[in-house]
């Protein structure tokens, strides 16, 4: 296992752990206002200080991790859930009109700058975590569809698939039983990368006020709220910023590490 993989796994699980623990315990109630106690720098009682309403920043970061992970997870879920079957279908019916329709549809979605469309969707249907998830999720679909189709196409020409066809399996069964397990590695790696992009997108949307709405804490909105206070309370901007960096860096390292680790060619070379 590479150093990248270990570091990535450690950073990612740190964030995941914070999110999971926040369900049962946070140092303070993340939504409890304590205005006389506002804008405290990091100290023994408030490890990450307090914000302009006197809320505990550490608790908000923990719960904010939950928001980020939930949004990114569901968005990747949407991408995998729709994209992978579409990609498998397109590969199974390679060259047919169905393949064309699916892949040109993907091109269409790809052609739009994703964050701009996400802003459009949330502006039309109202700001909120659910709409942010849908907006980010839609743009994950073509990513997974393409990668699945590409990998599946090269498999369809292989002997073991031919053997399966000869034994009478239909295209759907072959896709599910033989193609899917063989592209899973790729999907896991891509999923990790998309997950980190999803976290960035969520932070971006909530930074412009289109993500999770208050009082649900969100790293992006914490950054936006801190903007005018950077000069006298820099921790308010630094801490959510660092949280985003750590998470995205961790997931990217994890993705890189997983790719190296799971890649059969490298595995053979190692052995």
């Amino acid at each position, binding site marked *: 296992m590479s150093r990248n993989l270990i570091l990535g796994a450690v950073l990612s699980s740190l964030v995941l752990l914070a999110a999971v623990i926040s369900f049962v315990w946070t140092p303070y109630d993340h*939504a*409890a*206002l304590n*205005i*006389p106690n*506002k804008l405290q720098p990091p100290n023994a009682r408030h490890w990450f200080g307090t914000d*302009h*309403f*006197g809320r505990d920043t550490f608790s908000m970061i923990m719960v904010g991790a939950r928001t980020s992970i939930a949004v990114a997870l569901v968005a990747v879920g949407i991408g995998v859930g729709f994209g992978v079957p579409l990609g498998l279908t397109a590969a199974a019916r390679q060259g047919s009109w169905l393949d064309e329709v699916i892949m040109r549809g993907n091109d269409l979605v790809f052609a739009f700058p994703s964050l701009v469309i996400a802003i459009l969707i949330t502006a039309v249907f*109202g*700001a909120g975590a659910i709409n942010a998830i849908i907006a980010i999720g839609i743009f994950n679909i073509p990513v997974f569809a393409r990668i699945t189709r590409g990998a599946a196409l090269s498999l369809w020409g292989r002997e073991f698939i031919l053997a399966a066809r000869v034994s009478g399996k239909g295209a759907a069964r072959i896709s599910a039983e033989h193609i899917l397990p063989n592209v899973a590695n790729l999907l896991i790696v891509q999923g990790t990368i998309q997950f980190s992009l999803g976290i960035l997108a969520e932070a971006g949307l909530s930074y412009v*006020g289109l993500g999770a*709405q*208050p*009082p649900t804490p969100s790293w992006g909105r914490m950054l936006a709220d801190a*903007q*005018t*206070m950077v*000069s*006298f309370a820099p921790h308010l901007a630094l801490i959510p910023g660092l949280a985003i960096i750590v998470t995205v860096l961790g997931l990217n390292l994890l993705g890189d590490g997983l790719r190296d680790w799971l890649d059969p060619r490298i595995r053979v070379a190692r052995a």
Partner: protein
Amino acid sequence: MTKQTFRTFVSALAMGASLFATQALAKSDITIAMQLEPPHLDPTSAAAQAIDSVVYTNIFEGLTRFMGDGSVVPGLAESWEISEDGTVYTFKLREGVTFHDGTTMDAEDVKFSLDRALAEDSANAQKALFAAIASVEVADPLTVTVTLSEPNGNFLFNMAWGDAVIVAPDSIDNIKTNPVGTGAFTFGEWVQGDSITLNRNPDYWGDQPALETATFKFISDPTAAFAAMMAEDVDVFDNFPAPENLPQFEADPRFQVLVGSTEGETILSTNNKQPPFDDIRVRQALAHAIDRQAIIDGAMFGYGTPIGTHFAPHNPAYVDLTGNSAYDPKKAAKLLADAGYEEGFETTLHLPPPSYARRGGEIIAAQLAEVGITAEIINVEWAQWLESVFKGKDFGLTIVSHTEPMDIGIYARPDYYFQYDSLDAQTLIETLNTTTDPEERNRLLGEMQRLIANDYVNGYLFQLAKLGVAKAGVQGLWKNAPTAAIDLTQISWSE
């Protein structure tokens, strides 16, 4: 270089330097930043405050005008006489006043302007100001007689509003993009999305202003506002959007901070027709669930005066009714239980962009949650707010600052967006409008304040402070905002 030429060179250099120095001293231009850009420049056909900020007293003048201290003084009308019964106002106009297009301003123009505001199809945003007028007649070119249907103690005050300015009939078609008035400044250029420039009017009837040009720059983002001010890109910020940054300006010798009051009663507007807010016990519960001081400290960093009714504390007629709705969550919970909402209820809280609303809303939502009321926060832009809340009346709660001066009369309008329908309030305002005796007026105003406070029409939060930031050398800025205005005629640079 000979000695002679060197001397000439040095003295020429010195002369140049001194010339430059005098120019630097007599600085006659100014850049003033405001947060919102006006939609157009006709103050007589829209309620947008940003229009008045640019044009009031600078481009357009009325018969009377507001001064920075809120007093009403003669404007284009030099003097006036009021008949015994208080229904006939005879205005004597100033002589030799011309519009920026060169035409003379006379009684016909006054009649045109008032008739235009009175007309059936008038687009004026404050028609109530003119409601008392029965007829406007031209006695001679410099005398106008305004007859009221009944005495109105507010009439001279009403005529000072930006909505009652005198416009030029010839240029009325283009007023929105090329305003032509009688003021000390003429309209220069409007770069959409960026700035508006005004130039000194050499033919102004009054004293020439110290400034030659003034540029209004529009900076909506609080962070950008802070950066522009710190970088000295702008000389003045009319009303600084981020109160948390004021201590930094105060500590910096390059700047001065002017903390004053506005006419903005910041309230938790409640839809009085929407259940459960049609129940007075629920509205009273709201009032007791709110901790005003926490909102002022948390949202405005301490700037703002608590209010207990819809009236400006700096007005002599103000009655302090904050005790009527003191913070008492236990009482609030009991009132909710009495009204049948032991379990609380869910509602919406629409928040327009200013920080008093966005931050105040987060605080209020948290305070309401403590008594069991779940207020779903919906952040909206101003256009959306006007559409769905103000016009559509589709809201439960919203936070907004009512910045019009002396606007308690809105409580006599049952179709106004918070939909308070009270016969008592309507009769009271009617009596008030026909009362001219100042003491009696103050008494009636006090009664009105008590009535709406006891009916808990809205949650009364605080009087919005005016937070002006300017470079140290700027003089003559209005500290308070009796109306939305940036009076350029008074502004100058100290030597």
